[in-house]
């Protein structure tokens, strides 16, 4: 690490040190599901109320991911009382206990911001397994979207 302190150290060397510092806070890949844009997720958040800690599940559609390493952020959109709500979670935060993939949908782009303009039925995404109809047949959508 002594080399990194020289003025000639490349930014890549410096970045390696920065990453090594937080390496143990980054959740190992095995712990995290293989997230894809368009997935409907159950995000299990740890909520601390005074002394007690409980887990709250936030379900919604993954519409964006950004950042790398410990800076990884996921944007999850859901509809609450007919109002769109988006929460941005730091993926590696210890306050996120677990993430489950509820349903996987076809998404043709990396950011699904167009869902913000959608209303009603068109808000739903195509299910990856058997097209749009699938969701209606199986689950009459307690799932938010």
């Amino acid at each position, binding site marked *: *690490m*002594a080399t*990194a*302190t*020289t*003025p000639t*150290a490349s*930014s890549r060397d*410096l*970045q390696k*040190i*920065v*990453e*090594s*510092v*937080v390496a143990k*806070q980054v959740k190992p890949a095995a712990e995290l599901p293989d997230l894809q844009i368009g997935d409907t997720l159950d995000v299990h958040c*740890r909520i*601390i109320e005074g002394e007690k800690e409980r887990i709250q599940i936030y379900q919604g559609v993954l519409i964006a991911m950004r950042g790398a390493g*410990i*800076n990884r952020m996921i944007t999850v959109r859901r509809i609450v009382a007919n109002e769109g709500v988006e929460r941005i979670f*730091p993926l*590696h*935060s*210890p*306050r996120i206990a677990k993430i489950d993939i509820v349903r996987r949908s076809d998404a043709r782009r990396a950011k699904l911001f167009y869902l913000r303009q959608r209303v009603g039925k068109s808000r739903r995404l195509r299910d990856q397994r058997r097209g749009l109809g699938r969701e209606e047949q199986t689950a009459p959508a307690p799932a938010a979207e």
Partner: protein
Amino acid sequence: MPAAILGRKIGMTRMFTDDGKNIPVTVISAGPCFVTQVKTTETDGYSAVQIAMEDVKARRSTMAVMGHDAKAGVAPKRLHREIRMEDDAEASQYSLGQEIGVAALEGLKFVDVIGTSKGKGFAGTMKRHHFKGLCASHGTERKHRSPGSIGSHGTDRGHGAKIKKGKRMAGQLGNERVTIRSLDLVSIDPENNLLLVKGAVPGPRSGIVFVRTPTRLYKSKARKQAGGE
């Protein structure tokens, strides 16, 4: 005894604290430093300790510096900084060639970090002093970013058509010594000579920074320190 150390800024990242808080941290690679000179009132008229960091090739150094460092029994160093001491007794606790690592800052809750800010060149008043500029429309032409009036005859200086001293104007921005006081010292890693400090630190990555015991804490930080101990 004021603890201080030289280092280089490595970069910024984020950390999650035990209670799940997400805090921004700057990584500083500090030391190891070596004492290259001990100044006392007898020899120099004041008490101080000079520390140096980073080996430099002999051919890149000068004979004067090499000789100076050789007296302390260390290889020629690139950077030298002086730490002022209260009195000779304090200065004499240090010996020539003594190594100072990040462990010297152990036990501190807060630190001051001194660095040279990134140079922005000659900047206008909007960028340099956050002036608002002039109107975008309403007949304004070619002076949307100008400072406006800078005052007429120097009202506070008697007669004469001179501008008030210290009037904020365009000029060099950045590339100056900046001290950031009372930063939280998040953690120390003596193994890798790393310091983690909460928040931003002046200068570019690889820039030289000087980390020291806080000279005067901000009030809120002082309360925090008093409450915590």
